[in-house]
């Protein structure tokens, strides 16, 4: 529409070979065009106008009247709202300077008080000698367009106001990663204000990975989201402010696509996790302190036993047996501590128990004699501690009398998690072979009692041990 209009008035001016003809008699087809049009003589007196001009003005001006020159409207205003005297209209300007005005916007007020916004295109008309004869103004109603633009701006303002009001740090970029918007919370988190349209990927001063290594801006999660056109979740980063303060945060970068699915930018929300990190550190410090005390208490017990046994008439192996039990308990604590006292891995526990029998450099023949077979299983603290002690007793027994006491003996520990009706159950099989012929023990020792009460009563499981002459067999089941 704009193009039609702006190309129309020069055409009309050209049409004026006999220029005075244009001013005197307008082409009849102007009534058919979807635009308003009028002409003034060199003094600004209106010579003619079409029906659409009358509609836009809301009145019919008097042709050739000295009293209403330059424009047929009742009142005119700049878009800013300031009044525009008729003598300062674009038409007056064209007649004064002899140059065209193309695409100027003005507000027309009609006698009934209603207003319309118009875009005007004015071209001067000259005679063959170059004398200014007048000008033609093509103008059209852009009120609806302006209203839609204003509505869009309003919606944008509301949208931004909404984002500004959120306590979460939010920013957007275009498809190339240039920052197009950020809210107050983002500026606060970053500790500075990035340059809109200039800063790229992230508005932070400097970025680091959670492990403290510098993270280039073009490798940050937002850059990944834009470059790979996908949402990035589960990442963490640290923003450094210009003052050196560091803020750990979780980003939620999400690509933005237009109606056709084309990537047009991305939005990112940054969640400050300083408080959470602090709480985690406090919890770790507490757990460290607790662990330190527990370990020192165990070491104190170890020392007390050692001081008690020294000098007393006690067989040599007693202290060693006691220490091994104490250390087995302590090492299971270590596994649980590493997982914040939530769980311990069964295979890791077994590796610790067999470490004295596998790691001994002088005993190469034991390699491959201990076989551990099973999927990774996480044990809760209570089953982990009880089971570790039971397995420790079985291992000690195997090293003293069983398959680990003679070359050629083999020990296999296999386990499987069974999905039953009453929940998950762990089944562990302990199988020795190739050792000296097994004899039924004379009395029930600590190991047997622990197996019986610890597994069946404490862990609500079941345990059978058989002293088969070919090798000890033990089968345990317990809920996990």
């Amino acid at each position, binding site marked *: 529409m704009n193009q039609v209009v702006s190309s129309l008035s020069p055409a009309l001016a050209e049409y004026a070979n006999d220029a005075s003809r244009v001013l005197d008699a307008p082409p009849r087809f102007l009534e058919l065009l979807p635009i308003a049009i009028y002409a003034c003589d060199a003094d600004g007196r209106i010579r003619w106008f079409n029906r659409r001009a009358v509609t836009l003005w809301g009145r019919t001006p008097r042709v050739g009247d000295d009293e209403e020159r330059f424009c047929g409207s009742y009142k005119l205003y700049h878009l800013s709202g300031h009044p525009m005297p008729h003598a300062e209209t674009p038409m007056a300007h064209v007649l004064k300077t002899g140059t065209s005005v193309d695409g100027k916007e003005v507000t027309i007020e009609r006698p009934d008080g209603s207003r319309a916004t118009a875009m005007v295109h004015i071209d001067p008309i000259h005679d063959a000698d170059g004398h200014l004869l007048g000008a033609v103004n093509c103008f059209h109603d852009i009120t609806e367009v302006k209203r839609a633009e204003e509505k869009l701006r309003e919606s944008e303002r509301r949208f931004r106001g909404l984002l500004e009001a959120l306590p979460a740090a939010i920013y957007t970029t275009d498809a190339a990663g240039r920052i197009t918007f950020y809210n107050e919370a983002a500026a606060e988190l970053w500790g500075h204000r990035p340059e809109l349209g200039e800063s790229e990927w992230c508005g932070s001063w400097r970025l680091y990975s959670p492990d403290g290594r510098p993270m280039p801006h073009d490798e940050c999660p937002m850059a990944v989201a834009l470059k790979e056109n996908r949402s990035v979740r589960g990442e963490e980063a640290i923003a450094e402010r210009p003052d050196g303060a560091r803020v750990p945060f979780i980003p939620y970068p999400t690509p933005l696509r237009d109606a056709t699915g084309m990537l047009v930018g991305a939005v990112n929300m940054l969640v400050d996790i300083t408080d959470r990190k602090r709480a985690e550190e406090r919890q770790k410090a507490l757990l460290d302190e607790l662990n330190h*005390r*527990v*370990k020192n208490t165990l*070491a104190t017990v170890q020392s007390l036993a050692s*001081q008690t046994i020294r000098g007393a008439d006690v067989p040599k192996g007693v202290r060693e047996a006691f220490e091994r039990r104490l250390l087995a308990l302590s090492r299971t604590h270590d596994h649980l501590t590493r997982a914040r006292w939530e769980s311990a891995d069964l295979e890791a526990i077994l590796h610790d128990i067999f470490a004295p029998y596998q790691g*001994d450099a002088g005993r190469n023949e034991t390699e491959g004699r201990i076989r551990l077979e099973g999927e990774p299983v996480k044990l809760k603290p209570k089953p982990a501690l009880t089971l570790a002690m039971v397995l420790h007793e079985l291992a000690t027994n195997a090293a003293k009398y069983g398959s680990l006491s003679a070359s050629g003996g083999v020990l296999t520990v296999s386990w499987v998690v069974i999905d039953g009706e009453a929940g998950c159950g762990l089944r562990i099989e302990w199988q020795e072979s190739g050792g000296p012929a097994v004899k039924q023990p004379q009395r029930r020792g600590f190991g047997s009692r622990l197996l019986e009460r610890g597994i069946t009563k404490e862990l609500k499981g079941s345990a059978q041990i058989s002293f088969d002459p070919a090798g000890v067999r033990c089968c345990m089941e317990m809920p996990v």
Partner: protein
Amino acid sequence: MSEPLSADGLKILVVEDETIISFLIEDMLQELGCAVVWHAGDVREALALLRDRRPDVAVLDVNLGRELAYPIAAQLDAARIPFIFATGYGRDGIPDEWASRPVIQKPFAIETLAAALDSVLRT
């Protein structure tokens, strides 16, 4: 099942704030054949001791009540005296600067202490 140990005739500094535990470590070291065991219960005492005497190796408890043993570690490092950490925290509790040093976790068996001493004395 213990290997032949290389602690024979060594002078050792033990820094441990808990008396009963220090007995255990001293007894173990004597059992391993160490000639002299010097004991310090805190950082000040350990640094004072290091001004007059030069041990062959040191065993440092990391958490000495209200203070940590790292100033002693720095002093030993400057004097090129090897040392091991003995701690309830395990390796996770050691800051990066010292993380490459041998750590034994309390409570420990005599074999573990011997192996750790062996590893620092050999390098």
